Protein backbone atom coordinates (compact mmCIF):
# COMPACT_ATOMS: atom_id res chain seq x y z
CA UNK A 1 0.00 0.00 0.00
CA UNK A 2 1.41 3.37 -1.04
CA UNK A 3 1.93 5.95 1.69
CA UNK A 4 0.60 9.43 1.10
CA UNK A 5 3.30 12.11 1.46
CA UNK A 6 2.39 15.11 3.65
CA UNK A 7 2.77 17.49 0.70
CA UNK A 8 -0.29 15.90 -0.92
CA UNK A 9 -2.54 17.43 1.74
CA UNK A 10 -1.56 20.84 0.41
CA UNK A 11 -1.24 19.94 -3.26
CA UNK A 12 -3.29 21.51 -6.03
CA UNK A 13 -6.04 19.70 -7.88
CA UNK A 14 -3.82 19.38 -10.97
CA UNK A 15 -0.93 17.93 -8.97
CA UNK A 16 -3.09 15.27 -7.32
CA UNK A 17 -4.83 14.49 -10.59
CA UNK A 18 -1.46 13.90 -12.24
CA UNK A 19 -0.31 11.57 -9.46
CA UNK A 20 -3.55 9.59 -9.58
CA UNK A 21 -3.18 9.12 -13.33
CA UNK A 22 0.44 8.10 -12.83
CA UNK A 23 -0.86 5.58 -10.25
CA UNK A 24 1.54 6.84 -7.56
CA UNK A 25 -1.29 6.00 -5.17
CA UNK A 26 -4.90 4.94 -5.53
CA UNK A 27 -8.01 7.02 -4.89
CA UNK A 28 -8.87 4.69 -1.99
CA UNK A 29 -5.45 5.29 -0.41
CA UNK A 30 -5.79 9.03 -0.94
CA UNK A 31 -9.31 9.07 0.48
CA UNK A 32 -8.30 7.07 3.56
CA UNK A 33 -5.43 9.47 4.24
CA UNK A 34 -7.66 12.55 3.90
CA UNK A 35 -10.42 10.99 6.03
CA UNK A 36 -7.90 10.14 8.75
CA UNK A 37 -6.62 13.72 8.71
CA UNK A 38 -10.08 15.27 8.62
CA UNK A 39 -11.27 13.13 11.54
CA UNK A 40 -8.09 13.73 13.55
CA UNK A 41 -7.62 17.45 12.99
CA UNK A 42 -11.11 18.64 12.06
CA UNK A 43 -12.44 18.57 15.66
CA UNK A 44 -9.31 20.39 16.87
CA UNK A 45 -10.46 23.43 14.89
CA UNK A 46 -14.23 22.85 15.23
CA UNK A 47 -14.24 22.38 11.46
CA UNK A 48 -15.96 19.02 11.09
CA UNK A 49 -19.73 18.59 11.12
CA UNK A 50 -19.81 15.01 9.85
CA UNK A 51 -17.25 12.57 8.49
CA UNK A 52 -18.41 10.71 5.40
CA UNK A 53 -15.68 8.07 5.44
CA UNK A 54 -17.84 5.10 4.43
CA UNK A 55 -19.58 6.61 1.37
CA UNK A 56 -16.31 8.32 0.43
CA UNK A 57 -14.42 5.02 0.39
CA UNK A 58 -17.17 3.36 -1.66
CA UNK A 59 -17.00 6.19 -4.20
CA UNK A 60 -13.19 6.06 -4.18
CA UNK A 61 -13.25 2.36 -5.07
CA UNK A 62 -15.47 3.10 -8.07
CA UNK A 63 -13.19 5.91 -9.23
CA UNK A 64 -10.17 3.62 -8.94
CA UNK A 65 -12.00 1.28 -11.31
CA UNK A 66 -12.55 4.15 -13.76
CA UNK A 67 -8.91 5.21 -13.62
CA UNK A 68 -7.79 1.60 -14.11
CA UNK A 69 -9.84 1.53 -17.31
CA UNK A 70 -8.47 5.01 -18.23
CA UNK A 71 -11.98 6.44 -18.10
CA UNK A 72 -11.16 10.02 -17.22
CA UNK A 73 -14.08 12.34 -16.48
CA UNK A 74 -12.61 15.51 -14.98
CA UNK A 75 -9.52 16.94 -13.26
CA UNK A 76 -11.61 16.62 -10.07
CA UNK A 77 -11.94 12.87 -10.46
CA UNK A 78 -10.71 11.22 -7.25
CA UNK A 79 -10.14 14.57 -5.48
CA UNK A 80 -11.28 14.68 -1.81
CA UNK A 81 -13.47 17.66 -0.97
CA UNK A 82 -15.73 18.94 1.79
CA UNK A 83 -19.09 20.70 1.73
CA UNK A 84 -20.54 23.32 4.04
CA UNK A 85 -23.21 21.67 6.17
CA UNK A 86 -25.98 23.68 4.55
CA UNK A 87 -25.91 21.40 1.51
CA UNK A 88 -28.27 18.42 1.57
CA UNK A 89 -26.60 15.01 1.31
CA UNK A 90 -29.15 12.26 1.26
CA UNK A 91 -29.66 10.00 4.26
CA UNK A 92 -27.11 11.91 6.34
CA UNK A 93 -27.68 14.75 8.82
CA UNK A 94 -27.64 18.28 7.43
CA UNK A 95 -27.66 20.53 10.46
CA UNK A 96 -27.30 24.03 8.99
CA UNK A 97 -24.95 24.52 11.95
CA UNK A 98 -27.96 25.00 14.23
CA UNK A 99 -29.26 23.01 17.19
CA UNK A 100 -32.94 23.05 16.10
CA UNK A 101 -31.92 21.23 12.90
CA UNK A 102 -29.38 18.84 14.45
CA UNK A 103 -31.46 15.79 13.49
CA UNK A 104 -32.49 16.95 10.02
CA UNK A 105 -32.04 14.39 7.21
CA UNK A 106 -32.94 14.93 3.56
CA UNK A 107 -33.73 12.24 1.01
CA UNK A 108 -32.02 14.03 -1.87
CA UNK A 109 -28.71 15.67 -2.70
CA UNK A 110 -27.93 19.29 -3.41
CA UNK A 111 -27.38 19.81 -7.14
CA UNK A 112 -23.75 20.85 -6.62
CA UNK A 113 -23.00 17.64 -4.72
CA UNK A 114 -24.61 15.55 -7.46
CA UNK A 115 -22.53 17.37 -10.06
CA UNK A 116 -19.27 16.80 -8.21
CA UNK A 117 -19.85 13.18 -7.23
CA UNK A 118 -21.01 12.34 -10.77
CA UNK A 119 -17.61 13.30 -12.20
CA UNK A 120 -15.76 11.38 -9.47
CA UNK A 121 -15.17 14.01 -6.79
CA UNK A 122 -14.93 12.35 -3.36
CA UNK A 123 -17.04 13.99 -0.66
CA UNK A 124 -15.18 13.19 2.56
CA UNK A 125 -17.12 15.33 5.02
CA UNK A 126 -19.69 17.96 5.86
CA UNK A 127 -17.98 21.05 7.24
CA UNK A 128 -18.99 23.24 10.15
CA UNK A 129 -20.68 26.59 9.69
CA UNK A 130 -22.12 29.50 11.62
CA UNK A 131 -25.70 28.63 12.56
CA UNK A 132 -28.18 29.39 9.77
CA UNK A 133 -25.28 30.89 7.78
CA UNK A 134 -25.28 33.83 10.16
CA UNK A 135 -28.96 34.72 9.81
CA UNK A 136 -29.54 38.47 9.97
CA UNK A 137 -26.51 38.89 12.25
CA UNK A 138 -24.59 37.32 15.12
CA UNK A 139 -22.30 38.61 17.82
CA UNK A 140 -19.84 35.85 18.64
CA UNK A 141 -17.73 33.30 16.78
CA UNK A 142 -19.36 30.70 19.00
CA UNK A 143 -22.65 31.06 17.06
CA UNK A 144 -22.48 27.47 15.83
CA UNK A 145 -23.59 23.98 16.78
CA UNK A 146 -19.94 22.90 16.62
CA UNK A 147 -18.45 25.85 18.54
CA UNK A 148 -16.33 28.71 17.22
CA UNK A 149 -14.33 28.05 14.07
CA UNK A 150 -10.69 28.11 15.23
CA UNK A 151 -8.19 29.58 12.80
CA UNK A 152 -5.40 27.16 11.75
CA UNK A 153 -2.92 30.06 11.85
CA UNK A 154 -3.76 30.79 15.49
CA UNK A 155 -6.38 28.82 17.37
CA UNK A 156 -7.16 31.78 19.62
CA UNK A 157 -8.52 33.58 16.57
CA UNK A 158 -11.68 33.12 14.54
CA UNK A 159 -11.74 31.37 11.18
CA UNK A 160 -14.34 33.77 9.81
CA UNK A 161 -17.84 32.77 8.80
CA UNK A 162 -20.25 31.67 7.91
CA UNK A 163 -18.35 29.08 5.81
CA UNK A 164 -16.03 28.53 8.79
CA UNK A 165 -15.32 24.82 8.41
CA UNK A 166 -14.72 25.22 4.67
CA UNK A 167 -12.08 27.90 5.26
CA UNK A 168 -10.38 25.93 8.02
CA UNK A 169 -10.42 22.60 6.18
CA UNK A 170 -8.74 23.99 3.06
CA UNK A 171 -6.18 26.03 5.03
CA UNK A 172 -5.25 23.07 7.27
CA UNK A 173 -5.01 20.58 4.40
CA UNK A 174 -7.99 18.51 5.56
CA UNK A 175 -9.55 18.59 2.07
CA UNK A 176 -8.23 19.70 -1.31
CA UNK A 177 -11.13 22.07 -1.84
CA UNK A 178 -14.45 22.90 -0.22
CA UNK A 179 -17.80 24.37 -1.09
CA UNK A 180 -19.00 27.42 0.80
CA UNK A 181 -21.87 29.81 0.44
CA UNK A 182 -22.16 33.57 0.54
CA UNK A 183 -25.08 35.86 1.23
CA UNK A 184 -22.88 38.79 2.23
CA UNK A 185 -19.27 37.86 2.92
CA UNK A 186 -19.48 34.22 3.96
CA UNK A 187 -17.00 32.99 1.34
CA UNK A 188 -14.72 36.03 1.21
CA UNK A 189 -14.36 36.45 4.98
CA UNK A 190 -13.18 32.94 5.93
CA UNK A 191 -11.07 32.82 2.77
CA UNK A 192 -9.32 36.01 3.85
CA UNK A 193 -8.96 35.10 7.53
CA UNK A 194 -7.68 31.58 6.75
CA UNK A 195 -5.37 32.57 3.87
CA UNK A 196 -7.01 30.61 1.06
CA UNK A 197 -8.45 31.51 -2.35
CA UNK A 198 -12.24 31.84 -2.47
CA UNK A 199 -14.59 32.57 -5.34
CA UNK A 200 -18.05 34.06 -4.97
CA UNK A 201 -19.75 33.38 -8.30
CA UNK A 202 -22.23 35.65 -10.03
CA UNK A 203 -25.72 35.29 -8.54
CA UNK A 204 -27.53 32.55 -10.44
CA UNK A 205 -24.46 30.91 -11.99
CA UNK A 206 -24.38 28.00 -9.50
CA UNK A 207 -27.53 26.14 -8.47
CA UNK A 208 -28.63 26.48 -4.83
CA UNK A 209 -31.04 23.56 -5.03
CA UNK A 210 -30.63 21.55 -1.84
CA UNK A 211 -28.92 24.40 0.00
CA UNK A 212 -30.42 26.11 3.04
CA UNK A 213 -32.00 29.40 2.04
CA UNK A 214 -31.09 32.45 4.08
CA UNK A 215 -31.93 35.11 1.50
CA UNK A 216 -33.42 33.97 -1.81
CA UNK A 217 -32.21 37.04 -3.69
CA UNK A 218 -28.65 37.00 -2.33
CA UNK A 219 -27.52 33.40 -1.68
CA UNK A 220 -24.67 31.99 -3.79
CA UNK A 221 -22.59 28.81 -3.60
CA UNK A 222 -18.92 28.84 -4.52
CA UNK A 223 -15.53 27.12 -4.27
CA UNK A 224 -12.91 27.68 -1.58
CA UNK A 225 -9.52 26.39 -2.73
CA UNK A 226 -5.74 26.73 -2.67
CA UNK A 227 -5.49 28.84 -5.82
CA UNK A 228 -7.38 30.74 -8.49
CA UNK A 229 -6.67 27.87 -10.87
CA UNK A 230 -8.36 25.37 -8.53
CA UNK A 231 -11.35 27.72 -8.11
CA UNK A 232 -11.74 27.76 -11.89
CA UNK A 233 -11.60 23.97 -12.13
CA UNK A 234 -14.27 23.57 -9.43
CA UNK A 235 -16.52 26.32 -10.80
CA UNK A 236 -16.32 24.66 -14.22
CA UNK A 237 -17.99 21.59 -12.72
CA UNK A 238 -20.56 23.16 -10.39
CA UNK A 239 -21.85 26.01 -12.59
CA UNK A 240 -24.72 25.64 -14.98
CA UNK A 241 -28.44 25.83 -15.49
CA UNK A 242 -30.76 24.06 -13.04
CA UNK A 243 -34.53 23.98 -13.39
CA UNK A 244 -34.74 23.20 -9.67
CA UNK A 245 -33.31 26.61 -8.75
CA UNK A 246 -35.71 29.45 -9.66
CA UNK A 247 -32.80 31.91 -9.63
CA UNK A 248 -30.67 29.90 -12.04
CA UNK A 249 -29.30 32.19 -14.74
CA UNK A 250 -29.27 29.36 -17.27
CA UNK A 251 -25.60 29.92 -18.00
CA UNK A 252 -22.64 27.55 -18.01
CA UNK A 253 -19.05 28.33 -17.15
CA UNK A 254 -16.08 27.00 -19.06
CA UNK A 255 -12.80 27.63 -17.28
CA UNK A 256 -10.59 29.09 -19.97
CA UNK A 257 -8.20 31.65 -18.48
CA UNK A 258 -6.01 31.38 -21.57
CA UNK A 259 -8.85 32.87 -23.60
CA UNK A 260 -9.63 35.70 -21.22
CA UNK A 261 -8.67 39.18 -22.37
CA UNK A 262 -5.03 40.13 -22.56
CA UNK A 263 -3.97 41.56 -19.21
CA UNK A 264 -2.77 44.80 -20.78
CA UNK A 265 -6.30 45.40 -22.05
CA UNK A 266 -7.82 45.07 -18.58
CA UNK A 267 -8.53 48.21 -16.59
CA UNK A 268 -8.38 47.81 -12.83
CA UNK A 269 -9.95 50.26 -10.39
CA UNK A 270 -8.82 50.75 -6.81
CA UNK A 271 -9.01 53.40 -4.11
CA UNK A 272 -5.81 54.58 -2.46
CA UNK A 273 -7.71 55.39 0.73
CA UNK A 274 -8.68 51.69 1.17
CA UNK A 275 -5.07 50.58 1.33
CA UNK A 276 -3.52 53.66 3.00
CA UNK A 277 -6.14 54.65 5.55
CA UNK A 278 -8.96 52.11 5.95
CA UNK A 279 -6.71 49.03 6.20
CA UNK A 280 -5.18 47.95 9.51
CA UNK A 281 -1.76 49.70 9.76
CA UNK A 282 0.06 46.38 10.16
CA UNK A 283 -1.45 45.18 6.87
CA UNK A 284 -0.56 48.22 4.79
CA UNK A 285 2.98 47.20 3.73
CA UNK A 286 1.77 43.89 2.24
CA UNK A 287 -1.30 45.54 0.71
CA UNK A 288 1.04 48.08 -0.94
CA UNK A 289 3.15 45.22 -2.34
CA UNK A 290 -0.01 43.50 -3.61
CA UNK A 291 -1.00 46.64 -5.48
CA UNK A 292 2.50 46.86 -6.94
CA UNK A 293 2.20 43.24 -8.07
CA UNK A 294 -1.14 44.02 -9.71
CA UNK A 295 0.47 46.95 -11.54
CA UNK A 296 3.36 44.73 -12.62
CA UNK A 297 0.93 42.49 -14.51
CA UNK A 298 0.76 45.16 -17.18
CA UNK A 299 -2.88 46.02 -16.55
CA UNK A 300 -4.19 49.58 -16.71
CA UNK A 301 -4.81 51.01 -13.25
CA UNK A 302 -7.13 53.83 -12.27
CA UNK A 303 -8.65 55.31 -9.10
CA UNK A 304 -12.23 54.22 -8.42
CA UNK A 305 -14.89 55.01 -5.84
CA UNK A 306 -17.98 53.12 -4.78
CA UNK A 307 -21.24 54.79 -5.86
CA UNK A 308 -22.92 56.56 -2.92
CA UNK A 309 -25.65 54.27 -1.58
CA UNK A 310 -26.61 53.10 1.91
CA UNK A 311 -25.38 49.55 1.29
CA UNK A 312 -25.48 48.46 4.93
CA UNK A 313 -29.10 49.42 5.62
CA UNK A 314 -30.21 48.05 2.22
CA UNK A 315 -28.61 44.62 2.60
CA UNK A 316 -29.47 44.48 6.30
CA UNK A 317 -33.15 45.07 5.56
CA UNK A 318 -33.25 42.55 2.71
CA UNK A 319 -31.52 39.77 4.64
CA UNK A 320 -33.57 40.42 7.80
CA UNK A 321 -36.89 40.39 5.94
CA UNK A 322 -36.14 37.33 3.80
CA UNK A 323 -34.53 35.35 6.64
CA UNK A 324 -37.48 36.09 8.95
CA UNK A 325 -39.90 34.91 6.25
CA UNK A 326 -37.87 31.74 5.63
CA UNK A 327 -37.49 30.89 9.31
CA UNK A 328 -40.93 32.07 10.45
CA UNK A 329 -41.97 28.52 11.46
CA UNK A 330 -38.80 28.24 13.59
CA UNK A 331 -39.48 31.62 15.19
CA UNK A 332 -43.18 30.98 15.84
CA UNK A 333 -42.49 27.53 17.29
CA UNK A 334 -40.18 29.03 19.91
CA UNK A 335 -37.36 26.69 18.89
CA UNK A 336 -35.46 29.73 17.61
CA UNK A 337 -34.45 30.15 21.26
CA UNK A 338 -32.32 27.00 20.92
CA UNK A 339 -29.85 28.88 18.73
CA UNK A 340 -26.45 29.59 20.29
CA UNK A 341 -26.25 33.34 19.67
CA UNK A 342 -28.64 35.73 21.42
CA UNK A 343 -28.17 38.41 18.77
CA UNK A 344 -29.10 35.96 16.03
CA UNK A 345 -32.25 34.93 17.94
CA UNK A 346 -33.28 38.55 18.46
CA UNK A 347 -32.44 39.51 14.89
CA UNK A 348 -34.65 36.78 13.44
CA UNK A 349 -37.57 37.85 15.65
CA UNK A 350 -37.11 41.53 14.83
CA UNK A 351 -37.07 40.77 11.09
CA UNK A 352 -40.71 39.69 11.27
CA UNK A 353 -41.66 43.31 11.93
CA UNK A 354 -40.23 44.78 8.73
CA UNK A 355 -43.16 46.18 6.71
CA UNK A 356 -43.51 45.06 3.09
CA UNK A 357 -43.15 48.62 1.83
CA UNK A 358 -39.76 48.94 3.52
CA UNK A 359 -38.51 45.63 2.15
CA UNK A 360 -39.61 46.79 -1.29
CA UNK A 361 -37.92 50.14 -0.79
CA UNK A 362 -34.67 48.31 -0.08
CA UNK A 363 -35.17 46.24 -3.24
CA UNK A 364 -35.92 49.37 -5.26
CA UNK A 365 -32.73 51.05 -4.05
CA UNK A 366 -31.01 47.79 -4.96
CA UNK A 367 -32.16 48.32 -8.56
CA UNK A 368 -30.35 51.66 -8.58
CA UNK A 369 -27.27 50.04 -7.05
CA UNK A 370 -27.22 47.46 -9.83
CA UNK A 371 -27.48 50.20 -12.45
CA UNK A 372 -24.75 52.23 -10.75
CA UNK A 373 -22.45 49.19 -10.90
CA UNK A 374 -23.30 48.63 -14.56
CA UNK A 375 -22.21 52.22 -15.19
CA UNK A 376 -19.07 51.92 -13.05
CA UNK A 377 -18.05 48.63 -14.66
CA UNK A 378 -18.69 49.89 -18.17
CA UNK A 379 -15.37 51.68 -17.97
CA UNK A 380 -13.52 49.57 -15.39
CA UNK A 381 -13.15 45.80 -15.76
CA UNK A 382 -12.10 44.79 -12.28
CA UNK A 383 -12.25 46.47 -8.86
CA UNK A 384 -9.51 45.66 -6.33
CA UNK A 385 -9.84 46.23 -2.60
CA UNK A 386 -8.81 44.54 0.64
CA UNK A 387 -11.03 41.47 1.24
CA UNK A 388 -11.14 42.43 4.92
CA UNK A 389 -9.52 45.49 6.45
CA UNK A 390 -8.31 43.66 9.56
CA UNK A 391 -6.90 40.21 10.31
CA UNK A 392 -9.03 37.57 12.03
CA UNK A 393 -10.30 38.72 15.43
CA UNK A 394 -9.91 36.82 18.70
CA UNK A 395 -12.67 34.24 19.16
CA UNK A 396 -13.89 35.99 22.29
CA UNK A 397 -14.26 39.37 20.59
CA UNK A 398 -17.75 40.73 19.96
CA UNK A 399 -18.01 40.86 16.18
CA UNK A 400 -20.33 43.85 16.20
CA UNK A 401 -17.78 45.96 18.03
CA UNK A 402 -14.86 47.73 16.29
CA UNK A 403 -11.53 45.93 16.01
CA UNK A 404 -9.76 49.24 16.64
CA UNK A 405 -10.62 52.74 17.79
CA UNK A 406 -9.05 54.41 14.77
CA UNK A 407 -11.29 57.17 13.37
CA UNK A 408 -12.93 56.41 10.02
CA UNK A 409 -11.27 58.11 7.03
CA UNK A 410 -13.26 60.87 5.34
CA UNK A 411 -13.42 59.18 1.93
CA UNK A 412 -15.35 55.96 1.34
CA UNK A 413 -13.10 54.56 -1.38
CA UNK A 414 -14.29 51.02 -2.14
CA UNK A 415 -15.08 50.25 1.50
CA UNK A 416 -18.33 48.34 1.67
CA UNK A 417 -17.55 46.38 -1.49
CA UNK A 418 -18.71 43.10 0.11
CA UNK A 419 -22.34 44.20 0.71
CA UNK A 420 -22.33 46.30 -2.46
CA UNK A 421 -21.00 43.48 -4.65
CA UNK A 422 -23.51 41.04 -3.19
CA UNK A 423 -26.42 43.43 -3.75
CA UNK A 424 -25.35 43.80 -7.38
CA UNK A 425 -24.91 40.02 -7.78
CA UNK A 426 -21.27 40.45 -8.84
CA UNK A 427 -18.57 37.77 -8.78
CA UNK A 428 -15.56 38.20 -6.47
CA UNK A 429 -12.26 36.41 -6.00
CA UNK A 430 -10.31 36.62 -2.73
CA UNK A 431 -6.53 36.16 -3.03
CA UNK A 432 -4.05 35.86 -0.14
CA UNK A 433 -1.60 38.78 -0.32
CA UNK A 434 0.34 38.90 2.92
CA UNK A 435 0.20 38.87 6.71
CA UNK A 436 -0.58 41.24 9.57
CA UNK A 437 0.07 40.28 13.20
CA UNK A 438 0.97 36.80 11.91
CA UNK A 439 -2.46 36.36 10.31
CA UNK A 440 -3.29 36.15 6.59
CA UNK A 441 -4.62 39.15 4.68
CA UNK A 442 -6.20 39.12 1.20
CA UNK A 443 -7.32 41.31 -1.64
CA UNK A 444 -10.60 40.86 -3.50
CA UNK A 445 -11.17 41.26 -7.22
CA UNK A 446 -14.73 42.13 -8.26
CA UNK A 447 -15.99 42.17 -11.84
CA UNK A 448 -19.07 42.34 -14.01
CA UNK A 449 -21.69 39.59 -13.80
CA UNK A 450 -20.37 36.38 -15.40
CA UNK A 451 -16.82 37.73 -15.73
CA UNK A 452 -15.35 34.90 -13.65
CA UNK A 453 -12.79 33.98 -16.32
CA UNK A 454 -11.41 37.52 -16.26
CA UNK A 455 -11.14 37.53 -12.45
CA UNK A 456 -9.51 34.11 -12.52
CA UNK A 457 -7.00 35.11 -15.19
CA UNK A 458 -5.95 38.16 -13.14
CA UNK A 459 -5.89 36.01 -10.00
CA UNK A 460 -3.84 33.32 -11.70
CA UNK A 461 -1.32 35.89 -12.99
CA UNK A 462 -1.12 37.40 -9.47
CA UNK A 463 -0.45 33.98 -7.96
CA UNK A 464 2.21 33.19 -10.56
CA UNK A 465 4.11 36.17 -9.15
CA UNK A 466 3.43 35.58 -5.44
CA UNK A 467 3.75 32.72 -2.97
CA UNK A 468 1.19 33.77 -0.33
CA UNK A 469 -1.33 31.15 -1.42
CA UNK A 470 1.28 28.43 -0.88
CA UNK A 471 1.95 29.31 2.77
CA UNK A 472 0.89 26.64 5.26
CA UNK A 473 -0.27 27.22 8.82
CA UNK A 474 1.59 25.51 11.69
CA UNK A 475 -0.58 22.40 12.11
Amino acid at each position, binding site marked *: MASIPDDIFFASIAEINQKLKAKEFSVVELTKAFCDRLERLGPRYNALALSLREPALRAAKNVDGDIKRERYRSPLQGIPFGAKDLLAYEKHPTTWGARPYAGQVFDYNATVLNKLTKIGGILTGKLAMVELAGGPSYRYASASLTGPGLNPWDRTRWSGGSSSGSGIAVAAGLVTFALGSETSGSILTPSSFCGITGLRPTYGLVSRYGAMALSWTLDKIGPMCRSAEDCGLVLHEIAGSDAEDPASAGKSFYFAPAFARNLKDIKIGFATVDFDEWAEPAARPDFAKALETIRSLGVQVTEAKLPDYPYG*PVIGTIISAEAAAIFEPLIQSGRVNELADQKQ*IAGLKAGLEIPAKDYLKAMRIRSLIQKAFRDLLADIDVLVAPSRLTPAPKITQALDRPASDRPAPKERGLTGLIPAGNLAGLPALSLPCGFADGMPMSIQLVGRPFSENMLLSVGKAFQERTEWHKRRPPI
Partner: protein
Amino acid sequence: MKKLTRREIAVSISASAVLLAQPLPTNPDEELKAAKDLVQQNLQQLAKFPLPMSTEPASHFKA
Protein backbone atom coordinates in the same frame (compact mmCIF):
# COMPACT_ATOMS: atom_id res chain seq x y z
CA MET B 1 -30.43 60.44 -7.85
CA LYS B 2 -29.75 62.11 -4.53
CA LYS B 3 -26.08 62.67 -3.77
CA LEU B 4 -25.20 61.57 -0.26
CA THR B 5 -23.31 64.00 1.94
CA ARG B 6 -20.03 63.00 3.54
CA ARG B 7 -21.80 62.81 6.89
CA GLU B 8 -24.43 60.46 5.45
CA ILE B 9 -21.74 58.31 3.87
CA ALA B 10 -19.87 58.12 7.17
CA VAL B 11 -23.07 57.06 8.93
CA SER B 12 -23.91 54.46 6.31
CA ILE B 13 -20.37 53.03 6.32
CA SER B 14 -20.35 52.68 10.08
CA ALA B 15 -24.05 52.00 10.51
CA SER B 16 -23.32 50.36 13.83
CA ALA B 17 -21.31 53.33 15.04
CA VAL B 18 -24.09 54.43 17.35
CA LEU B 19 -24.43 50.95 18.78
CA LEU B 20 -20.70 50.66 19.27
CA ALA B 21 -20.75 53.24 22.00
CA GLN B 22 -23.46 51.34 23.86
CA PRO B 23 -22.91 48.42 26.24
CA LEU B 24 -23.71 44.90 24.98
CA PRO B 25 -27.23 43.69 25.81
CA THR B 26 -27.18 41.37 28.80
CA ASN B 27 -30.53 39.58 28.55
CA PRO B 28 -32.94 38.42 25.82
CA ASP B 29 -35.31 41.37 26.31
CA GLU B 30 -32.51 43.91 25.90
CA GLU B 31 -31.23 41.93 22.94
CA LEU B 32 -34.61 41.98 21.22
CA LYS B 33 -34.99 45.71 21.84
CA ALA B 34 -31.49 46.30 20.38
CA ALA B 35 -32.38 44.19 17.32
CA LYS B 36 -35.62 46.10 16.78
CA ASP B 37 -33.75 49.40 17.20
CA LEU B 38 -31.26 48.31 14.55
CA VAL B 39 -34.07 47.40 12.15
CA GLN B 40 -35.62 50.84 12.74
CA GLN B 41 -32.28 52.59 12.20
CA ASN B 42 -31.90 50.80 8.88
CA LEU B 43 -35.44 51.73 7.84
CA GLN B 44 -34.83 55.36 8.79
CA GLN B 45 -31.75 55.38 6.55
CA LEU B 46 -33.80 53.96 3.70
CA ALA B 47 -36.58 56.51 4.31
CA LYS B 48 -34.10 59.33 3.74
CA PHE B 49 -33.29 58.01 0.30
CA PRO B 50 -35.54 59.59 -2.35
CA LEU B 51 -36.72 57.26 -5.12
CA PRO B 52 -38.38 58.08 -8.43
CA MET B 53 -41.83 56.44 -8.67
CA SER B 54 -40.66 54.59 -11.73
CA THR B 55 -38.01 52.62 -9.82
CA GLU B 56 -39.04 48.98 -9.62
CA PRO B 57 -37.63 46.44 -7.15
CA ALA B 58 -34.60 44.43 -8.26
CA SER B 59 -35.86 41.12 -9.55
CA HIS B 60 -33.26 39.84 -11.96
CA PHE B 61 -29.59 40.30 -12.79
CA LYS B 62 -28.27 41.14 -16.23
CA ALA B 63 -24.81 40.31 -17.53
